[in-house]
């Protein structure tokens, strides 16, 4: 006899963590990140993993505001995340401009031996995204950017 319990079904199927849609403006991103923090607190993810997800999403959403919609009227951004046993899968969509060359930027860590006056004040965003995510994919089609990210799910 095969018994399928509610618990085993939950372990195999990805479960939605959150789904948000809002206008891409700095203070709206801040509000969305607060909602995301609240949603993550209800999960079994460890505090460090929750923190990393907040940081990752802050970088991705700030990029949409500062780059995708730069020089044009702010449009919508949609972010959703689902959790499976091993990882959190995030999809972020917007209708702003494409990434340069329609590709994920190649980033190098800052030159820490440079004189103080030459230290970078930017460029940390993609470094953080690529460090925190185990995999990042970017698709551009029909005027839409779709960034997909995977982060290891570490339980508390």
């Amino acid at each position, binding site marked *: 006899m095969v018994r399928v319990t509610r618990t085993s079904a939950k372990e195999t199927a990805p479960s939605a963590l959150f789904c948000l849609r809002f206008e891409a403006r700095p203070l709206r991103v801040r509000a969305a990140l607060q909602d995301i923090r609240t949603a993550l607190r209800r999960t079994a993810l460890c505090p460090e993993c929750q923190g990393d997800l907040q*940081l990752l999403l802050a970088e991705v959403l*700030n990029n949409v505001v500062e780059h995708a919609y730069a020089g044009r009227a702010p449009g919508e951004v949609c972010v959703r995340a689902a959790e499976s046993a091993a990882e959190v899968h995030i999809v972020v969509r917007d209708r702003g401009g494409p990434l340069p060359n329609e590709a994920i930027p190649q980033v190098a860590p800052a030159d820490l031996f440079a004189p103080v006056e030459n230290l970078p004040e930017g460029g940390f965003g993609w470094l*953080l995204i690529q460090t925190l995510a185990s995999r990042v994919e970017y698709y551009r089609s029909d005027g839409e950017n779709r960034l997909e990210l995977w982060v290891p799910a570490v339980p508390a």
Partner: protein
Amino acid sequence: MKLETVQEDETLVISVDETRIDAAVAIQFKDRMRELTSGGTGRVILDLGKVDFVDSSGLGAIVAAMKQLNGGQNIALCGLQPMVDRVFRLTRMNTIFAIHDDLPAARAAAAG
């Protein structure tokens, strides 16, 4: 962007009275830091004890705050909460700044 300052002998202690230094306030933070540190000569301690979140824009603004100090000044950070500490480590900016656990430790280092 609320920053509180206390001048202690040669050391200017700047405490960030906000929970976030993020993209929404990074420019304000950088400008306020310039106002507070310009013309100074001694050590600056930036107390981040109340800040629970710094993103890449906030980090860039803290780096900018260091770069806009004049030659005789230097800056130390203290009170980094776990997520803030993580951002500094992931970007290796923890190797650029003097970082202390808390304000007393930063003061002791300044005096020593």
